[in-house]
């Protein structure tokens, strides 16, 4: 039984081999983009709005509200990155119930890619908000000797982000596989529901931690 979608080669485009991770990522991207494009093509600004627009507005409002709570300032500069991060991970995890689907988040390559994106997003937003010098200076706070610890902290939290998400989703997929082979009825269903809950929680954790890291970067020390 193959549990790493990176090793599942589906097809090739010339010399490039497309594995399940990339393929299902594209599927999720296509779904998210298509769904958004279709719904937002006819947005209403009146008092009455369509049901799907309401769903999208609830999601966007929730994301911006969470970011505002954590960062404590205008959330809109961070919504595209953090919102995409949260929605992508959530949809990847929730689609686990679809037969033959392999969640890209069960691949360390994907979770590492996401964690590295957060790793680079943190200084990017910090520099955008406070300037390069202020951001660099923050690594020497409260003293010069704190620089290595700051660097270790940055790297370790990036690794922890990647491994936490990968571990949870991969283990859950593995457990469902094991249960399916041992007890084919009823128990896998319970595990699927349990897996959905884990998927939602992990998406929320990843999103919240990324928000906290970016929030700590954009906030001036002592603010």
């Amino acid at each position: 039984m193959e549990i790493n979608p990176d090793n599942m080669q589906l097809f090739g485009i010339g010399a490039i081999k497309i594995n399940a991770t990339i393929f299902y990522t594209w599927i999720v991207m296509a779904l998210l983009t298509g769904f958004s494009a279709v719904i937002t093509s006819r947005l209403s600004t009146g008092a009455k709005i369509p049901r799907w627009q309401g769903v999208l507005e609830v999601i966007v409002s929730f994301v911006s509200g969470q970011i505002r709570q954590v960062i404590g300032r205008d959330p809109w500069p961070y919504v595209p990155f953090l919102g995409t991060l949260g929605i992508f991970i959530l949809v990847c995890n929730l689609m686990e119930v679809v037969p033959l689907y392999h969640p890209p988040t069960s691949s360390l390559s994907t979770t590492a890619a996401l964690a590295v994106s957060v790793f680079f997003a943190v200084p990017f937003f910090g520099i955008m908000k406070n300037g390069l010098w202020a951001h660099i200076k923050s690594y020497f706070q409260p003293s010069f000797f704190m620089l290595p610890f700051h660097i270790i902290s940055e790297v370790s939290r990036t690794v922890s982000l990647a491994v936490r998400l990968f571990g949870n989703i991969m283990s859950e997929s593995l457990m469902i596989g094991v249960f399916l082979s041992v007890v084919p009825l009823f128990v896998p269903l319970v595990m699927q529901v349990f897996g959905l809950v884990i998927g939602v929680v992990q998406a929320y954790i990843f999103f919240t931690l990324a928000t906290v890291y970016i929030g700590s970067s954009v906030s001036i020390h002592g603010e």
Partner: protein
Amino acid sequence: MEFDLFTFIAQVINFTVLIALLNKFLFGRVKAAMDERERKIADDLEKAVIQRQEAEKSAALAAEELKLLESRRQEMLEDARNKAREEEAQMKAAAQTAAEERQKKWQQAFSMEQENYIKALKLHSGKFAWKVSEKMLRELSDEKINNKAAEIFLKKLEALGGAQTAEFKAAVNRSEKPVVVLSPFVIDDILKDKISGVIVKMTESKNKVLFERSESIGFGIQAAVEGYKISWGGSEYFSGMEKEVIDVFKDGNKKGGYDG
């Protein structure tokens, strides 16, 4: 726990592309729609505030207008009351005037009635007294009282003062009509001639003297020309009685002063 560098790079690119796509198709558009709706709501709220302020202004204006109307109403009521008072006073005055007018008319009518009554009383009393006197005189002497009356009138004519004679003369000379001697009885021819003679002598005119009978003069004799009259009769005696009767009419408790 395998790590595939190619997949990692591809996923970084995929995620970056997904950020761009969702920013374009989801977050940007939804934010724009939400901002637009928020702006509309804010505008509506602003409009509502403005409308509320306008409504409050209108309410204040209406209240002020109501106050003004109320004051006008009070003024109108006061005016109406004043007019009513004036009209009432006018009506009262008119009624009083009408009442006074009626009273006056009634008094006039009463006076006329009284006058007529007294006239009639005088006439009848005179006649009655005349008849009684005539009867008594006839019984007392052989002379007729009518002739006696004519003689007394003749004496009165002869005894007229200078001023009266001049007025009578002027009246006779102004008129082309004859002097009319009125009496309620037939005067003896001899006396007629005497009276005519005296009148002609007095007036020095050639106007005729006519003798006519008239019951309207009551009791006595009267020579009249151009509104000028010389008369003798019971009316002179009865004028005292007339006064007494009027006094009795005015004051019912008054006793007549003609007892003796």
